[in-house]
């Protein structure tokens, strides 16, 4: 039919155009990375640089091969996408290359949320077939629930066999990686939560950018000084929006700030939730205070499309002077707006009844799936992945921290005397750190807590009764789950 020919021609034309775009210029498709291959990421943000170039396949220098008798195949489900996914793939490629002679091969599958969000992991484990040997996720809360339900292997005996000491991880991570005292998750790296502030705006408000707030009272007065009314009942600049960024953009961020306020949401010994304690009420009163004092502007500036990678983030457009976020924001700022913002960073201020200079520890956890036939090899691969040489690029770029204090010394940022990294280290070592609300219903709890917070901020819901209702509901879910 004549029409088919036309259609075919058109399609061919499109393909040719796409090919042309692909072959012109220096497209490097599918190159495997070896130790010296990719150039170190240039921090220069020339006009033509895209974010993708900066997060290209990582540099792995000085990786040493270990002697091992292990052999076999691994299936590795990874939740990392985008630039992180490429980095993950390149270290898998390196591993395969280095240990090919031992008959070791790792197949990496990039799956939505490591198979957690699309039900693939759940179904694979249930049916016992097609399950991966190990996974890595960027959503520790989701992974924890799986650990509680017995989907993963306990690794306390396994890790020492490949030379990892499970006791070396920060105590603050125990909440996340252990269930009933047994280790199920192996953290790759950790992140701390900080308060970022715009030094220029701070100066303009007559405050000292080198003396950031340490207490909640100071934070509140900074916020007030940095909020500029627009003469129309609103504001043209705000000091702080306490529930965005790490204050609660995603359900994974639900409990960061309440933690700093000293709350203890879950008591594992008694399997009891506590959402109505004094400190939690005070936290909500604090939030509600901001919501009322700076309305309506503060409600309107709630969200932007991509969080801290979106150039329209209110911190980048200098609409908001202070912002809660993790150590990765340092790189996000660089990638998104370059040097446009003069920023400083400090520990999250706390009330005197809270936890000073503390943080919840976020981590990207590995887990070995129960029933894997190659568990020791999986542990060996994990050790490779968390080794300092492999992680160096990750640390240098995203400022994430190793999961044990001793590993800090080998990181270039430490060796170069980087002030922010030293601050991160100090915060990470705080014995009061933890990972709150880790229980068998952690996903739903975090999700519903976020919703409750929004009800309180945007709908004027009553603090105590909303929290009580949520607590009752999740407590019964907890009780019935056991």
């Amino acid at each position, binding site marked *: 039919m004549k029409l088919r020919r036309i259609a075919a021609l058109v399609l061919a034309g499109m393909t040719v155009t796409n090919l042309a775009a692909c072959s012109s210029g220096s497209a490097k498709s599918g190159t495997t990375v070896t130790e010296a291959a990719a150039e170190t990421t240039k921090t220069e943000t020339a006009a033509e640089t895209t974010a993708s170039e900066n997060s290209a396949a990582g540099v792995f220098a000085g990786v040493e091969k270990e002697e091992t008798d292990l052999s076999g195949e691994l299936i590795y489900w990874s939740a990392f996408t985008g630039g992180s996914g490429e980095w993950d793939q390149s270290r898998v490629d390196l591993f395969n290359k280095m240990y090919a002679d031992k008959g070791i091969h790792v197949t990496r599958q990039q799956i939505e949320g490591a198979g957690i969000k699309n039900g693939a992991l759940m179904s694979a484990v249930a049916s016992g077939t097609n399950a991966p040997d190990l996974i890595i996720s960027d959503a520790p809360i*989701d992974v924890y629930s799986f650990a509680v339900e017995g989907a993963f292997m306990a690794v306390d005996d396994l890790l020492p066999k490949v030379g990892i000491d499970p006791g070396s991880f920060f105590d603050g991570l125990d909440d996340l990686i252990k269930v009933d005292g047994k280790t199920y998750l192996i953290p790759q790296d950790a992140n701390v939560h900080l308060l970022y502030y715009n030094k220029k705006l701070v100066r303009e408000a007559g405050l000292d950018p080198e003396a950031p707030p340490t207490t909640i009272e100071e934070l509140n007065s900074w916020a007030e000084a940095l909020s500029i009314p627009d003469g129309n009942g609103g504001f043209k600049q705000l000091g702080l929006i306490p529930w965005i960024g790490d204050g609660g953009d995603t359900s994974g961020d639900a409990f960061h700030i309440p933690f700093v306020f000293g709350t203890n949401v879950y008591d594992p010994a008694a399997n009891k939730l506590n959402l109505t304690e004094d400190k939690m009420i005070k936290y909500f009163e604090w939030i509600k205070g901001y919501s009322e004092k700076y309305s309506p502007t503060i*409600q309107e500036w*709630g*969200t932007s499309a991509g969080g801290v990678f979106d150039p*329209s983030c209110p911190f980048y457009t200098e609409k908001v002077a202070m912002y809660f976020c993790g150590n990765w924001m340092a790189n996000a700022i660089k990638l998104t707006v370059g040097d446009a913002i003069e920023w400083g960073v400090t520990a999250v201020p706390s009330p005197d009844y809270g936890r000073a200079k503390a943080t919840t520890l976020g981590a990207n956890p590995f887990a070995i799936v129960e029933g894997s036939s190659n568990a020791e090899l999986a542990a060996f691969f994990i050790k490779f992945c968390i080794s300092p040489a492999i992680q160096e690029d990750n640390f240098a770029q995203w400022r994430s921290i190793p999961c044990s204090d001793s590993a800090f010394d080998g990181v270039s940022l430490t060796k170069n005397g980087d002030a922010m990294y030293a601050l991160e280290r100090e915060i990470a070592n705080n014995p009061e750190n933890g990972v709150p609300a880790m229980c*068998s219903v952690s996903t739903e709890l975090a999700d519903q807590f976020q919703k409750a917070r929004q*009800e309180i901020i945007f709908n004027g819901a009553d603090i105590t009764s909303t929290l009580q209702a949520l607590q009752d*509901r999740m407590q019964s879910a907890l009780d019935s789950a056991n």
Partner: protein
Amino acid sequence: MDYRKKDIRNALLFISPWIIGFLVFTLYPILSSLYYSFCEYKVIKAPVFIGLRNYINLFGDKSYLAALGNTVYMLIFGVPVTTVTAVAVSILLNNKHLHHAGIFKVVFFIPTLVPTIVACFLWIWMFQSGGIVNTVLGYFGISGPAWLSSITYAKPAFIFYMIWTIGNAVIIYLAGLQDIDPNLYEAAEIDGAGFIRQTMSITIPLLRSTILYNMVTLIIGVFQWFAEPLIITEGGPGNATLFYSLYLYQNAFRFFKMGYACAMGWVLLVISLAIILVLFKVFKFGEAEN
């Protein structure tokens, strides 16, 4: 052979693909899910029979009631608005005075070709506080709301999404419109009926069945809608955009409550069945023509 028997045999042969598919890919999973709805089922552990507890819990579940309410909201507001828009657009596109109809028609189909994730991103971007939608509203002196961060205006943002994706419905409406005898319009014109009168007396009644079909499709779509709400708002702010199937998905795959989710699914089945049967009766549909 008896005439009837041969017909029955032939008919069964013809519909055999559906029968097989129904038994294997539909009936078996449905019956499984019915069984699971009476259990507590974490998927990675075997199901545990708990009787009607899931169904009872549904009625006290604030999130469930919110999800139900949100879906009903979309049915009451979203479906009529979308249907009216689709019909209106189709009537305009079908008009014989319209030149370059081809270009216009393609315009309405393009949105359905955009990959889901990209469409979701476009929506987030457009409905930001300082985004395109509010900018345009600003030209008319209207101060736009926070849309996807606003409890009241998040759902309307999704209604706009429904309208944006009317492409499929428009195809079917156009087909239905083409079927209407132009002589009817001529006659009406001669009788002095204006455009509105013609539409109400000729077009709409004759399009009745097409409208019914598209409405049913739309209603089913609203009940099953979950990918876009998941990506765009994850049900927020508060529970404002927690739609039925999104909550079902969360329970099934995130909260380890597959049994509970199955119970939700069955309640959905019953509710949709009721709505659609009512619609069929109202539109007097379902009987074969020959």
